[in-house]
């Protein structure tokens, strides 16, 4: 099959502009996220229900930290802390687990102003850009073949890759311009952006990746809403977890660990 050679002007006015524009928009989105992060101020906890939620969150954090790092505490200290949380009559977890399940509508309305604004901002900066770029590419650059993919594909991809081109016998390898948009989008302009931005700030890299993942998954804050529905069950689960912890103080094992590390260094 002889190759189709495509006019120089398509390269100058279609191929390169699409790549350059998408790259610029990606960089712009990165700067925008950085700017929004800087402007984010801490939210004041004002209403009583919010104070209650913060207390619950702190209690769960405390019990989780105890369950995770129990090896750092000696025996009597761990037992005291565990009794403070799990005691049958006066432990914090037992008292907290007797609270009634909260009305889901009420708890959602309390969180709304703060969390919804953040969600809206993240969604805006992601999906709007994607939609605008798609419309731009498909409006201006539709109806002609722009390039060729180097690997063989089946006929099923024809409708996706050759949108707007109605020649039936054309090899599936020849693609229209909207498929370049998809290749660039999924392929990872993000990675190249990370190369340029990621060196100064590690947290920034995590934000963009998390953003993309959250857009893909749809509802980002479902887990936290689920927890608000029934805190009693959560506390009961935490309590059973704490009571089942087999505690051993790491200092007792420290001599063996030191011998192991020293051996590793000395032998090399």
């Amino acid at each position, binding site marked *: 099959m002889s190759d189709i050679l495509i006019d120089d002007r398509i390269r100058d006015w279609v191929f390169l502009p699409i790549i350059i524009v998408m790259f610029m928009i990606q960089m712009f989105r990165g700067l925008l996220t950085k700017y929004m992060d800087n402007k984010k101020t801490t939210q004041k906890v004002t209403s009583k229900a919010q104070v209650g939620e913060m207390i619950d969150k702190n209690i769960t954090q405390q019990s989780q930290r105890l369950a995770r790092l129990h090896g750092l505490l000696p025996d009597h200290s761990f037992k005291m802390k565990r009794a403070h949380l799990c005691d049958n009559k006066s432990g914090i977890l037992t008292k907290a687990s007797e609270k009634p399940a909260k009305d889901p509508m009420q708890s959602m309305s309390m969180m709304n102003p703060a969390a919804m604004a953040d969600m809206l901002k993240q969604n805006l900066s992601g999906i709007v850009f994607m939609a605008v770029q798609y419309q731009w590419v498909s409006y201006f650059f539709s109806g002609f073949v722009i390039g*060729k993919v180097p690997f063989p594909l089946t006929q099923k991809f024809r409708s996706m890759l050759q949108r707007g081109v109605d020649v039936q016998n054309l090899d599936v390898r020849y693609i229209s311009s909207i498929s370049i948009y998809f290749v660039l989008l999924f392929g990872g302009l993000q*990675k190249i952006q990370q190369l340029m931005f990621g060196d100064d700030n590690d947290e920034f890299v995590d934000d963009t990746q998390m953003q993309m993942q959250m857009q893909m998954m749809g509802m980002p804050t479902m887990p936290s809403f689920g927890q608000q529905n029934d805190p009693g069950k959560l506390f009961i689960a935490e309590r059973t977890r704490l009571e089942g912890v087999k505690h051993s103080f790491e200092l007792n094992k420290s001599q063996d660990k030191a011998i192991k590390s020293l051996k590793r260094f000395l032998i090399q």
Partner: protein
Amino acid sequence: MEEPKVELDDLEVNQERLKLNTNQLKNLRVYGSLNAGMIAGILGMDGWIGIGIYVAIFLIVSACLAIKMNFRVKEYFKSSYDAYYSGIGTDMLLFLMIWVIFHNLVNIL
């Protein structure tokens, strides 16, 4: 405020240095994919040979990393699987993108 997650087993490992190392490895892999894409595109490789070039360059990058570390992987990363083989699928999309772009620029357009 989120507190940093510390597990008991990780207390033997210096967390910040491990993070720096992993970041550097990620940058290195991205450069490797970019180069592989350019080579495959400019030389006009077709189909499975191109993917073979990507795997070959990936392994060459891993080999250079091993030589630079003097083959002592445990001092720099958590395991040899992490350092050499782990990210091959995630960078393949980047390779495909660069391959398509350069193949079109050089051979067809």
